[in-house]
């Protein structure tokens, strides 16, 4: 029988995405067994993040400094701006280190049925960044869901008046994917987006 304190910790961990009561119990036991090497560093890391974590007022990224490290990185191309739905999408794109520009996090996607409206997202801030000038291309990197694509269309319409190139991530055949395993919708999209070779 665990103490109420340990129970409280287990329950708090169990609510994290991807964990459940069983994994949480295992994590708690691990932390208790390795207090010096696992629990103490975790505690320090959590305290630091809790004390210093802020949302970047420019792009919406989460960092311990504001503006965030991406926005202040002089090696990045400030003329290129990639718009994503969530911070997780920004991190996914940044992990690949393929995108040399800066980001803009919307904080969600438009959804009439769930009551997420344009003013709930950082679209006005995005328009403000374009109005300030210095941006040549906006890459709309929304999810390929109906709501993601509706949001992309909406933003394209809202920023129509600015002299920037608006592009969208390609939809179709995934790298390493086999045609045989793709659904018809993806195949049709890949066919429509075909391009000359060489």
């Amino acid at each position, binding site marked *: 029988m665990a103490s109420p304190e340990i129970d409280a910790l287990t329950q708090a961990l169990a609510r994290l995405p991807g964990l459940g009561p069983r994994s949480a119990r295992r994590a708690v036991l691990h932390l208790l067994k390795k207090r010096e090497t696992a629990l103490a560093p975790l505690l320090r890391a959590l305290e630091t993040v809790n004390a210093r974590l802020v949302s970047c007022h420019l792009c919406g990224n989460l960092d311990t400094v504001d503006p965030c490290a991406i926005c202040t990185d002089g090696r990045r191309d400030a003329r290129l701006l990639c718009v994503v739905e969530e911070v997780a999408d920004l991190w996914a794109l940044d992990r690949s280190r393929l995108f040399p520009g800066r980001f803009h996090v919307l904080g969600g996607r438009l959804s009439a049925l769930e009551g997420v409206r344009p003013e709930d997202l950082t679209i006005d801030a995005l328009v403000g960044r374009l109005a300030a000038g210095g941006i040549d291309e906006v890459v709309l990197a929304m999810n390929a869901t109906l709501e993601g694509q*509706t949001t992309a269309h909406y933003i394209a319409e809202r920023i129509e008046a600015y002299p920037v190139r608006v592009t969208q991530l390609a939809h179709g055949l995934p790298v390493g994917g086999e045609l045989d395993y793709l659904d018809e919708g993806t*195949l049709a999209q890949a066919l429509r987006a075909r391009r000359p070779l060489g």
Partner: protein
Amino acid sequence: MAVTRLRLTDFRSYPDAAIEAGPGLVILTGENGAGKTNLLEAVSLLAPGRGLRQATLSEMARGHGPGGFAVAAQLALPAGAIEIGTGTLATAPERRQVRINGAGAAANALGEWLALLWLTPAMDRLFGEGASGRRRFLDRLVLALEPGHGQHAARYEAAMRARNKLLAEPEGADPAWLAALEAGMAEHGAAVAAARDRTVAALAARLAGQPAGPFARAGLAIEGWRPAPNAHAALAADLRAGRGRDAAAGRTLAGPHRSDLAVTHLDKAQAAGRCSTGEQKALLLGIVLAHADLVAEASGRRPILLLDEVAAHLDPLRRAALFDRLAAAGGQVWMTGTEAALFDGIGAKATRLTVSGGAVMEGG
């Protein structure tokens, strides 16, 4: 392609039943309420979807049974037999489990193994009721030929629901947001309309090419909303122009959800809704059989047909024509009827089963 063995456990009225069926006609006879349609429903669960009654999974589990149910079948294919199993567990009565050759699979994977078409007494009202039933019927025909149709239809509906919700807002909707939703509706709506057009054209051509005979020939056309030549751009423009109209109506008045499948009795030049019940049944049968031919041509495998109580409404001449045609086309066809005499014209090769009191016996 044929279901050669079927075993039911705690399914509807059957605690436990096993059937062996031949590759051709399978005839189930029994009194009203004996459980004939339950057997067809069990076969219909071997395809993706909710089966021929469109029932929920918990309705299919036997009343006063342990809670879950199972339908296991052996499917004979040109390359050999496979085992398909589907059902629910008592602990998760609304979660459908599917096994193909013993391995867990998604319900949609069933579509890769077999195609099924059915005709039930509930569809007798198809020509008399509203257009939505006929659209659903048409969409099922399209889906068997073009699997991508389902995704376009679902996305179109989702975008339309969102647009209707925005238009209903008292403070007025954001025009850019509406335009974004209308772009999605136009893209997927044009794809839905085009796929329906292709299926109707192919079916109509096949039906028109058949000789006039005791069997009713159907003329098919899409009525109500029709796509303009440049459907994508035209639908987007129509939706944009119709915002005020749609807001006042509380629903979207243009688009493929306003189309109707118009069916006529070709030889009588009469709308199907004005034909007799028997003629309507014959028209529907003609469409389903022509569609089975199309699917067989396109995919190389003839769908299994489930014809519930079809013989009852047909006069002897039409019944004989139906049986001749089914025998000539080949493929497995499951049929039900209250009396064995309805199927007298069918040769000895058919599998005949009698259903009574929750049990299935050979012979009929």
